[in-house]
C-alpha cells in the first residue's frame, strides 16, 4: 500500500519544473532569512567585541566638539584637542579606579605615500600601564618598549607587513624626520591595533612638541565599583569629556534594536512572499488534479487522506527549499559579508554574519512552519472536492 508521503513526492516529481522553481523561490527566501538573522547576531557581537577590546570601561578625552575632532582627524589634522597630563593626578585619588593609562594620538601627513600623500598615525602609550589593559596583544617578535622617552616603536601586524619591518629596523616619522627603532611586532589581533604604530607617549610629546599633553586617558574601575557614580564624579572635572563604554554599548544596543526591527520587517516580507508563492503553486496543482482527486475519493480516500496528501506536498517543498537556502546562505556568507562591508560606512572587525547550527535549524523550522500554514487552504479546498462533480467535470473550480 503506497504511503501518503510517497504519493505526495511522486506528485511533485510529475511537475518537475514547477516544483524546482517553487523550491528555488523558497530557498531564496530562506537565504534572505538566514543571512539577515546571521547579520543581526554578527554585527552586534562584533561591535561589542571591538568595544570590549578597547580594554577600558571609561575613556576620558579632551573636551571639544567631537564633530570638529572627527573632521580634523579624518582630514589630516595633527590631533584631537589636548588635555593636561596633570588630570591623571586627580583620577588616581579616586578609590573606584583600578587602572589608568594615558594616551596621546598624533598624526602626520606623509607626502610620499601614493600620488597625493596620506596620513600616518602614532599612538603614544605608557608601557607600564597600557599592556595590562590589553592582555590579548601578544608579540610575534620583540617586546614593549621600556623607556617612556625612548624613540622606539611597536608595530601592529598589518603595519609591519606593509612597511616590511622587523625588530631592529628603523622607521622615519615624516615631517619630523625623526628615526624610530622598531622593538616589537605584534601578532594579528583582528582589531584596530593591527594597523597601529605604538610609541612611548613621552617620546611622542617631545617629537611633536606637546609636552605635558594627552588626548585621552583609559580608565578601568575596580570590580564591584559603581561605574555610574564614578562617571558622575568625572563630569565635574573641567575641560574633559567622559565616554563610558557601558553607555556606548547601550546606545549601540538601542541602535541595533532599531536596525533589528527593520531587518525583521524585511525577513517577514520575504516569508510572506514565500507563503504566497507556495500557496499559489499548490492551488494550481489541486486545480489540475481535480478529476484525479475525485477518483481517489470515490475509491475510498477520505477527506482527511486528501488533506494530508496536499499538506505533505507543501511541507516537502518547504523543507527542501529551507535546507537548500540554508546551505546557500552558509556558502555565500563571506560574499554577503564583503558586500555589507562595501556598503556600510563603518563595520566592526570580526565576522559580520554569524550562522551557527542552531540558526540554521530555527530557519528551516520557520520555513517548514510557513509551509504548514500555506498548505492549509489548498489542502482544505482539495479535501472538500465532491467526487461525482469532480469526475464529471474536466477542470477544477475553486
Amino acid at each position: 500500500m503506497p504511503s501518503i508521503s510517497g504519493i505526495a513526492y511522486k506528485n511533485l516529481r510529475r511537475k518537475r519544473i514547477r516544483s524546482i522553481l517553487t523550491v528555488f523561490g523558497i530557498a531564496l527566501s530562506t537565504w534572505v532569512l538566514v543571512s539577515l538573522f546571521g547579520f543581526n547576531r554578527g554585527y552586534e557581537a562584533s561591535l561589542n567585541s571591538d568595544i570590549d577590546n578597547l580594554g577600558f570601561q571609561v575613556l576620558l578625552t579632551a573636551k571639544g566638539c567631537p564633530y570638529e575632532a572627527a573632521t580634523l582627524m579624518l582630514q589630516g589634522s595633527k590631533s584631537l584637542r589636548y588635555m593636561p597630563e596633570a588630570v591623571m593626578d586627580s583620577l588616581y585619588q579616586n578609590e573606584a579606579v583600578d587602572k589608568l593609562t594615558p594616551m596621546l594620538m598624533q598624526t602626520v601627513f606623509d607626502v610620499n605615500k601614493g600620488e597625493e600623500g596620506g596620513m600616518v598615525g602614532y599612538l603614544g602609550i605608557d608601557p607600564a600601564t597600557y599592556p595590562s589593559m590589553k592582555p590579548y596583544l601578544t608579540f610575534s617578535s620583540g617586546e614593549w618598549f621600556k623607556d617612556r622617552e625612548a624613540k622606539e616603536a611597536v608595530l601592529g601586524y598589518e603595519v609591519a607587513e606593509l612597511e616590511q619591518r622587523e625588530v631592529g629596523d628603523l622607521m622615519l616619522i615624516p615631517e619630523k624626520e625623526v628615526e624610530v627603532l622598531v622593538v616589537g611586532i605584534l601578532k594579528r589581533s583582528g582589531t584596530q591595533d593591527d594597523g597601529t604604530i605604538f610609541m612611548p607617549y613621552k617620546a611622542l610629546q617631545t617629537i611633536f612638541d606637546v609636552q605635558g599633553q594627552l588626548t585621552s586617558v583609559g580608565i578601568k574601575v575596580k570590580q564591584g565599583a559603581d561605574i555610574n557614580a564614578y562617571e558622575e564624579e568625572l563630569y565635574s572635572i573641567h575641560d574633559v569629556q567622559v565616554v563610558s563604554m557601558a553607555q556606548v554599548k547601550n546606545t549601540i544596543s538601542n541602535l541595533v534594536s532599531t536596525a533589528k526591527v527593520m531587518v525583521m520587517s524585511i525577513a517577514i516580507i520575504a516569508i510572506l512572499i514565500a507563503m504566497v508563492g507556495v500557496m499559489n503553486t499548490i492551488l494550481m496543482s489541486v486545480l489540475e488534479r481535480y478529476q484525479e482527486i475525485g477518483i481517489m475519493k470515490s475509491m475510498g480516500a477520505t477527506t482527511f487522506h486528501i488533506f494530508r496528501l496536499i499538506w505533505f506536498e507543501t511541507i516537502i517543498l518547504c523543507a527542501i527549499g529551507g535546507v537548500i537556502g540554508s546551505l546557500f546562505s552558509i556558502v555565500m556568507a563571506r560574499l554577503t559579508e564583503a558586500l555589507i562591508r562595501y556598503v556600510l560606512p563603518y563595520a566592526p572587525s570580526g565576522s559580520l554574519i554569524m550562522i551557527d547550527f542552531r540558526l540554521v535549524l530555527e530557519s528551516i523550522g520557520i520555513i517548514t512552519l510557513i509551509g504548514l500554514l500555506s498548505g492549509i487552504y489548498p489542502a482544505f479546498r482539495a479535501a472538500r472536492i465532491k467526487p461525482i462533480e469532480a469526475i464529471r467535470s474536466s477542470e477544477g473550480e475553486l
Partner: protein
Amino acid sequence: MKARFLLLLILLLPLFIHAATGCDLNDPDADVKRLFPQSTGYKTTYMSLTKTGGAEALKRVERTLGDKFSGTYETIDVPYSIYIVHKGKDIIGYVHGVNQKGQYGGLQVFLALDNNGVIKDFYFQKLSSKDAKLFKDKKFTAQFKGLSLADFSTYDLATGKGNTKMNSIKNPSKDPKGDFAAIMRAVKKNLALMQEFVYKH
C-alpha cells in the same frame, strides 16, 4: 549620546590607514592612465609563485634576481597584481609593482613595461626616505626608461656594479646606507617576477 558614539567611531578607526597588503595600485584607473596615456582600459590579474611552479619557480626568480627572497615578507604565496594594459583590443603593456624593504619602511615600486619587457615608466607608490624627493625626481626615474631584464641581469646587487648602462644610473642620495640599493633590488625583482609570470610564456 551622539557625541559619545562619534568619539567611539574615531577610536575604532585604524590609526594607520593604508592599502591592502600585497602591491596593488591605490587608484588603478588614474595610475594606469598616467603611466600609459594612450591606453583605453586595463585588466587586473593576480599571480603568485605557487601558481607558476612553487619552490622551483622561487628558485628561478632568485637565480634571476641574484639574491634570496626574505623569509618574512617575500614568501612564496605573496599575491602579485599585474595590470594588463589595452588600447582597444591590443595589449600595449603591463604595470606591475613590488614591495621592497627600505631603510625606513616599505617601498612600493611600480614599473610600466612594454610587450618586450622594456621599462617605459617608473612610479614610486610608497617611499619612506629622507631623500624621497631626490628619488622621486624625474631626473632619477628617467634613468630607468629603456632598460630591461637583460640590462639588470648584469647588475650585481651585492657590489652595485653592472654593464655600462647600469653603471650610468646615478644615486642622487649622499647617504651610503640610503635606499638606492633597495630601489635597484626592487626594480630587478620586479623584472624577474614579470619574466616568470608573463614574458617567459
